């Protein structure tokens, strides 16, 4: 090993920072979009309408059985074709992430709602509350409480997954690190640095999850 060259990292910092900002932006927008679409999917699956829940279930199972990279490829191809004009790599990737994450979020929400004991609904009924009131005041608050740690974990996974936009050369933190690595010929420094940065961010996230879990548990 021929000496670890920190100066490469230092001089690339502004470029890497831009990449990291893109990673964060993509993560945040994908969480918002994914949660929104995920709620719709979860509602559709748990609705009484057979056809609607079947469509939603098919979508969720379909997305969950293919790799994210393939989903990214799909939407890179489909989005411009459907819209009839190119929208740029960022929006194609964002749409791919939203569509992908929504499938996972909807499952988390469904599991959260199912996790509320049946006795709670019966207790609600026995005190004379109607369906919507039981959902609003009894089921959803408890379900949401149970869901929070899982949702944050999924957000950490999503942040890690954004590194996959590398396959379409969108300049996120991973791609930026890789560009510097190759142009400067400093593969060891750049990939280890990328690993450390991702680790620090994601580990901080995991610690938050653990704190949330112990709060939910009490």
């Amino acid at each position, binding site marked *: 090993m021929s000496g670890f060259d920190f100066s490469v990292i230092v001089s690339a910092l502004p470029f890497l920072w831009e990449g990291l900002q893109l990673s964060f932006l993509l993560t945040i927008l994908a969480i918002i979009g994914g949660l929104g679409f995920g709620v719709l999917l979860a509602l559709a699956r748990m609705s009484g309408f057979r056809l609607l829940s079947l469509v939603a279930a098919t979508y969720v199972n379909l997305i969950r*059985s293919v790799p994210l*990279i393939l989903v990214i490829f799909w939407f890179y191809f489909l989005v411009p074709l459907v819209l009839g004009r190119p929208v740029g790599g960022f929006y194609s990737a964002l749409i791919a992430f939203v569509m992908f994450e929504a499938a996972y979020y909807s499952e988390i929400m469904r599991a959260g709602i199912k996790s509320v004991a049946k006795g709670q609904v019966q207790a609600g009924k026995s005190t004379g509350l109607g369906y919507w009131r039981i959902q609003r005041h009894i089921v959803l608050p408890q379900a949401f409480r149970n869901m929070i740690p899982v949702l944050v974990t999924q957000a950490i996974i999503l942040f890690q997954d954004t590194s996959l936009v590398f396959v379409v050369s969108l300049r996120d933190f991973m791609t930026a690190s890789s560009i510097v690595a190759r142009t400067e010929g400093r593969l060891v420094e750049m990939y280890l640095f990328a690993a450390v940065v*991702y680790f620090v961010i994601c580990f901080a996230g995991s610690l938050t999850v653990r704190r949330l879990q112990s709060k939910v548990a009490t």
Partner: protein
Amino acid sequence: MNYNWNWAVLFQDPYLGWLISGLGWTVSVSLCAWVVAFVIGALIGVGRTVNNRLISGLCTAYVELFRNVPLLVQLFVWYFAIPEMVPDGVGHWMKREMPMPEFTTTVIALGLYTASRVAEQVRAGIDSIPKGLKAAAKANGLSGTQVYRYILLPISFRIIVPPLTSEFLTVFKNSSLALTIGLLELTAQSQQIADYTYNSFEAFTAATVIYIFIALVVTGLMQIVETRTAIPGQSGKGA
């Protein structure tokens, strides 16, 4: 929408061959990585539950390290950085003489990454067994190792079949990352067919259908495992 459909392209030479070879790589990388993940994950998971601060600390560190760095970054570290960091002789061997470098590297990276997730499931499985049962096994005269071997592990592995199924499926999906270091697995081949023929829709559909097929086969097999290993008298399954 302006698109020239041509489903026949999927069955033409050489594209059909590409898909088949892609499937072959996807399956072989995934199965090998799963063996690595299962063996190491089981050891690390058990290690986290033992009554030894050093061992459980090291195992926890492993899980945190491998779980909190994106798989793609890990793959690049294994492929590009590690050969430069090891002693010259070994590095030279890794770069020049290691058989099937892309395949081997993916198996190691994907295997060790997945091991951290398997370890979490194994630990959770062992932790979910009531404390009293462990006490009873000890009171029955079993040694620490015997308690794990005959009681804790057989029960926890039965409990965690469903989450392990989902990890196993994830391995197949994650094997697609190998395309970034040049392994022409299924996703890479479909992308390549799309590039050569402009029939992206057909190419991606083919890959999608094959992945779904893999998921169905794996889920089916694991359901057989689940029924076979179900404990009679528990959770309504079995005799």
